[in-house]
């Protein structure tokens, strides 16, 4: 949180003056009060996180009918079915590629943009608003806009390439291009959030540190690599964790742009899961897939904490 809030924080004197008006008048121990304060969150968590997690585990051990009712206990059979399904294994590979195509470019571009915004003197407000704009787009609106840019006959991207004597590229209908194109949309869409987080991190760097570096004659490159990069490492780490989780869960852009095609080239994990549950109505195997995804996310996050967090510089 920024330490400087000028939002009329009450000082101790005004608090002392008003404190006779007591709120609920309940006599509860501190633990009882804590329970009451936590209760609304607890109810939602229990109903929509803890219960479904348990239910997923139960579902994954059963066969189900199209209405989701369990019909027979099959033990780990669903997991075996999933793990030997060639489509599933193919979708794992696609998801790995998709993560590689989206996470490093998003963070890299946002880091550059945030650093450039950080060092300019004039026009900062306008620049940061423009860079943050993709945050206002949803996966739905972004997919429609990019889908039109990709359009082979009226799309502007091919018109642009044509000016340089290149193309046309069949962005979404050629198996070799489709995953790249969907990744491009994803990078653009995720850029705003990554930028805002990194810019926020740079804003907390004490002015004196950068000022003294400047007086010592440090160039832009030195400022970037020696000061800014280490000091935003907590934000970079946070983004790495959050974006990998996000990439593993990508769905909307696939659903709207390619529906997993052409020839399964963009059939990522969650799209495959969606087909299994809401097209094939096989909730048992779909639950097994969801739990395997949970395991994957948990494993990767732990790995990142082990491997990356050691290099993070917390102040």
């Amino acid at each position, binding site marked *: 949180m920024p*330490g400087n809030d000028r939002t009329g924080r009450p000082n101790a004197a005004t608090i002392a003056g008003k404190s006779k008006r*007591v709120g609920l008048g309940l006599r509860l121990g501190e*633990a009882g009060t804590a329970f009451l*304060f936590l209760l609304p*969150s607890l109810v939602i968590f229990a109903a929509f996180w803890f219960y479904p997690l348990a239910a997923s585990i139960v579902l994954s051990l059963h066969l189900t009918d199209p209405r989701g009712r369990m019909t027979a206990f099959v033990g780990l059979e669903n997991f075996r079915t999933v793990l030997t399904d060639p489509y599933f294994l193919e979708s794992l590979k696609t998801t790995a590629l998709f993560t590689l195509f989206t996470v490093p470019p998003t963070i890299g571009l946002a880091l550059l943009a945030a650093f450039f915004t950080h060092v300019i003197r004039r026009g900062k407000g306008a620049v940061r608003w423009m860079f943050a704009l993709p945050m206002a787009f949803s996966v739905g609106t972004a997919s*429609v806009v990019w889908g039109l840019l990709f359009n082979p006959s009226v799309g502007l991207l091919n018109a642009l390439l044509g000016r340089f004597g290149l193309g046309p590229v069949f962005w979404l209908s050629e198996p070799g291009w489709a995953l790249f194109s969907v990744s491009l949309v994803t990078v653009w869409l995720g850029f705003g959030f990554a930028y805002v987080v990194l810019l926020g991190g740079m804003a907390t760097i004490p002015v004196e540190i950068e000022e003294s570096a400047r007086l010592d004659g440090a160039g832009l490159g030195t400022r970037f690599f020696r000061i800014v990069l280490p000091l935003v490492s907590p934000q970079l780490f946070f983004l790495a964790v959050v974006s990998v989780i996000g990439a593993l869960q990508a769905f*909307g852009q696939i659903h709207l742009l390619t529906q997993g095609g052409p020839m399964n080239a963009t059939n990522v994990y*969650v799209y495959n899961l969606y087909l299994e549950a809401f097209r094939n109505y096989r909730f048992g195997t*779909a639950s097994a897939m969801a739990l395997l995804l949970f395991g994957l996310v948990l494993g990767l996050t732990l790995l990142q904490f082990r491997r990356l967090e050691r290099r993070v510089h*917390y102040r």
Partner: protein
Amino acid sequence: MTNAERLVVGTGLLALLGFVLFPIVFTVATSLMSPEEMLSGHPHLLPEQPTLANYARALAGAPLLRFIENSFLVSAAVTAGQLVTASLAAYAFVFLRFPGRTAFFFIVLATMMIPWEVTLIPNYLTMVRLDWLDTYQGLIVPFLAGAFGIFLLRQAFLQIPMEVVEAAKIDGASHFWTFARVVVPMARPGLLTLGAYTFLTTWNMYLWPLILTNDEAMRTVQIGVGMLMFQEFTEWNTVLAGIVIVLLPSVIALALGLRFLIGGLGAGALKG
């Protein structure tokens, strides 16, 4: 900065702004272009004869205003609910002592690791059982509390000097009074961060409204925009005019909340 450095920063900024802004300029420009002009055979960015006719067609063609109303209602309710539940929970985690506090906080954090897809099927089945398909409560209630909000506000509350809360307690104020009159006003930037973030993410939600709603009257804007795309005669300029209309509320929310998002999300990554 030396001149060479200025050149690097300037070109870098221009290139990156080009990448970020190109689709947005394209959206606005094409929404002002007549379909005849767009299909005239030479694709170009800026309209030669700008027109607002597409906006009229977008509003007439799909119940866009109804979708906006739905999304606005859902986003506002979820935002209000999250602010209440998350600030109450964060208060308990920061200012109250109770057995199992640390353990319970970690359980809350661990739910951030559960992919939404794990809960998707059971939650969908819960909705079927409650008969909450195609209802506002189905779109709102599951999102009324979240680990991210609790985490973010806990970070914000930790910045409040303990003495302020102690002083209120010595004066005999109840915890509820201290919460509502001392802690919440002091943590306003944090609350605004969470508010702006929750509003944007709820407004932009896709998968849950897609599987929960079938009735056109209950659909949210994001699903509505997808619907415009798959109509029999897709009129692209009309679709883009619709998108501009749908984007307006989130662009406004972003403009109002950006300051707090930069302050809050950046610091939220710091270790608490």
